[in-house]
């Protein structure tokens, strides 16, 4: 935890708790979690399956309001904003890479990368999409559909899509979980390399301890509590 940056922090979680209500009981997932992330900082979130990593990412990125605590992004209380403003903030400053990749099968690779840029109304959307694909080494495959790519290539497209937005914070949830060792390493290097190169902060959930060593900050989530790994 970086307590020195509480004035300039990009993202700050303050005593966040969260859980889900079942039929009769409430399951607690996060309990009093606090976390601060600076601009350009890379943080890995470790934990076994079901430990609440995805929930923490969802809460941190403004996708799911916590039951208690506050989440500040760019010094604004995320959940004090209405959903539309929160969405606008995500579109402007956040990028996502998912375990399930979430590429659109009906669009080719270039169109997939261009899609969020088009929604943001970026005039140079196509140019930036091509540039992002170049950066992940898939410029030649811009016109093929995702189904023609391997799993590793698909995840690289997802990385390109996230970086094309030039986000301040990139949130990645187990981005290498479905890839073999070689592809996983390549995707991870891309994420960290591009992050470093562009000054993008990374918050990556993973269960791969070896990959996480590349991150300056490592947290472990256990029993709903966060601690430095």
């Amino acid at each position, binding site marked *: 935890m970086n307590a020195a940056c509480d004035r300039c922090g990009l993202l700050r979680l303050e005593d966040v708790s969260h859980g889900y209500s079942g039929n009769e009981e409430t399951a607690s997932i996060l309990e009093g979690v606090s976390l601060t992330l600076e601009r350009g900082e890379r943080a890995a979130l470790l934990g076994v399956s079901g430990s609440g990593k995805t929930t923490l990412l969802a809460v941190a990125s403004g*996708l799911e309001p916590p039951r208690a605590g506050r989440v500040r992004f760019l010094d604004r209380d995320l959940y004090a904003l209405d959903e539309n403003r929160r969405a606008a903030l995500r579109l402007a400053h956040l990028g996502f890479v998912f375990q399930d990749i979430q590429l659109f099968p009906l*669009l080719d690779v270039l169109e997939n990368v261009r899609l969020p840029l088009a929604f943001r109304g970026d005039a140079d959307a196509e140019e930036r999409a091509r540039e992002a694909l170049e950066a992940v080494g898939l410029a030649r495959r811009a016109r093929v559909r995702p189904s023609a790519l391997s799993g590793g290539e698909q995840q690289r497209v997802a990385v390109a899509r996230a970086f094309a937005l030039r986000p301040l914070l990139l949130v990645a949830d187990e981005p290498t979980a479905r890839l073999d060792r070689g592809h996983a390493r390549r995707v991870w290097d891309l994420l960290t390399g591009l992050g470093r190169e562009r000054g993008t902060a990374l918050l990556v959930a993973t269960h791969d301890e070896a990959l996480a060593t590349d991150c300056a900050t490592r947290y472990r989530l256990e029993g709903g509590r966060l601690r430095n790994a």
Partner: protein
Amino acid sequence: MRASPLTRAVGRAFGGRARAAVVLATATLGTFLVLRGALFAGLVRRDADLLGGRATLALSRPLPALLAARARRDGLRTASWVRFPTAAVHGPRIALATVLAVGPGYPLRGDFRVRIRAGGPRVRRRTPPPRGGVWIAPALAAFLHARLGDRIDVGVARLRVAGFLERAPGIGWRASLFAPPLVMRLATLAATRLVLPQSRVVYGLSLEGPRTPLDTYLSWVRTRPSRPFVRRRRDVVRSLRRTTRRLTRYAALVVLAVLALAVFALGLAARATARRLAPVAAYLVAQGVDRARLGRSFLTALARPLLTTCALGTPVALLAVALIAALFRGELPLVFAPGPVLGSLLVAVLATAVLSSALFANTLRALATGSPAAALRGSRLPLRRASGVVLGAALLLVGALLVPDVGVHHPKLLAALVLGAVLLPVLFRAGFALLARLARGRAVGLWWPATALARRGWAAAVEASALAFALGLALTAVGVEHGVVRDLEHGLARGQPNWFLYGITPGARAPLARALAQAGLGRVRYAPFVTARLVRIDGRRVRASSPRYRRVAWLLRHDQNLSSRRRFPPTNRLLAGRFWSPASRAAEASLDRRFARLLHVGIGSTLAYRVAGRTVTLRVTSLRRVDWWSFRPNFFVLASPSALRGLPRSYLTSLAVPPAAVPRLARILRRSPGVSAVDASALLRLARRTLAASRSLVILEAATLFLAALLLAASALEESAAERREERALLTLWGVGPARLRRLAAGEALALGIAAGLAGGGGAIVVTRLAMESLFDLPVPALGWMLPAALAASALFLLLSAAIAPRAALGSYAALRALDEGGGGT
């Protein structure tokens, strides 16, 4: 910005089956609207000049001379005419014709279209044929085997065929269908000696002139004691609109059924489209794209491909229209004008586009309303099903648009159709769940198909409903047609009466009976025929314009035919009350039950008729079911003999005339002016011709229905394709061989087919029974064959579907891939 990737994505996601459903819906609706418009235009064109002027006065006795004199004094032009049906004879041939005898100046509006030379062109004529000559319709010429220049007998006159008449002001479409027109001068009519005091003749006066004096004049006419029947052009148009609705009602119901199936297919297609769009929606919502904007973007992106697809339905509609027009050439007056045709197609395109976008909006909107965290969790946004309320409301709206008559007069039928379309899948779903429970613990060959249907959820339920619906309607159409033809043919069996003679004056009865007996045509029984106008029901004055009598307005505006009998007619069935004794002195009436229903009367009600200046009040003492197809004299209203005593009357009889005896009948009729003859076998020929053309339409409709059902079944298969692929992959990995897999698939198809067949066949039996009893008033034929036919057809249909289903998932590599994809259907 260039075309948005989302626009392209939505365009691609809007798949082939959705497009096919939209094309089918547009084409079906377009075909119907174009044909209905063309039929209306045709009827208007034929009947717009019906009046032969801007307005007509008509009466069943000669019009008082004062009426014409006053019209002329008010600055209106007038032309007199007389119209009535009679028998025309040419050699050994007899045919019923509608005589239109016209005075000088006729027609005041429109013209006659006649061919006066064999093979020559059609010419316009503003004056009637020369004295001693007649123009006859080609259909009448064909019945009589008459050529130009031939002489035909009309009454006692022998008149020369001076032209073939293709269009005549003053002859309605219905009249020309059953009794083709024959036009002559009023001066010629006198020579026929057909018009006698008791003859059933309509005397008319056509009027033409500026609107204001005409209105003033008609207001004056309505105050006259003679109370002639007044008709204006707008009345004709209104009545033609009603006729068009009646004629197209059956087709409208089929169109509605096709639309219901297409809407279901569209609903499933919308879900399939949404499924394809779900990942991108989940991602975009997570990424921060505004939900409302995303929803709008989906719909905007869909608008263009949807409209283009709707437009694709128009050439299909035009093709279908051309086909139907060719089938019904000569049977229906169809007139196609570019404006109305384009208008109808535009309405079809817009209606389908609105309906489709409502369905898609309902489903696609759901994509933008799920939890944004869903994408992060790797789950898809939940899809909301196109709600039954939206579907039901949409169908009711289309139903009301297409079949206003059904909506007004048969709301239960319309509601049942819509409810059936919406409820059937619900019932199937519950039934399949029950089946799965019953099959628990049984052999896998039985258990698998039963649980498969339950596992497929709505997909299987909708698939079964589509099949059941299509099968049910197709079988109903076949069953009803078969029943009607069978009864018609039974009615005309050898030895049954096949000729009607009517317009027989009291004095002509005995000589005619003698002549018929001498010619070996048997003894005749006469039924009296009294022309009367219904003026009061239960003491209250009858107004034809009242909404209460909307369905019998035409009957109330015209004279009705009353008859009397001493004993109950053998071909009728007594349903309520008691029939009078031969000695009854009371003024009693026995009514056809449907007529009674339309008049809202029952046992004990009173009906007051005006006959030749007298009022006769009858008390209803019995209700009958009349066998209208028995080809015996039948009447809506029978009166006790004492009630009609002393009233002016003519007589009617029916007799069995073998073909060889027709020339003898023709000779007798030549000597009996005023007696009209109707050859029932000619009616049967006409009915057969119409039924043959209708059969083609039924086949076309059944084919469209099956196409819609096929589309729906395909959409439902697509809905569960990923699931099926995954199941097959798993089974293959477990070691289930291809042959067994095929057997399991066949078992599922068979179970679905049996369910759909039972529902479709059962439904067809019920609907056919109802149609035969309440619509046609005919005995219900044996309908047991419908159930096995429906079962066989649906099982075959589904087995074929299973046989041609893609087998890619059966290979082991494909199986692994399918599992790897998690059945995502990407």
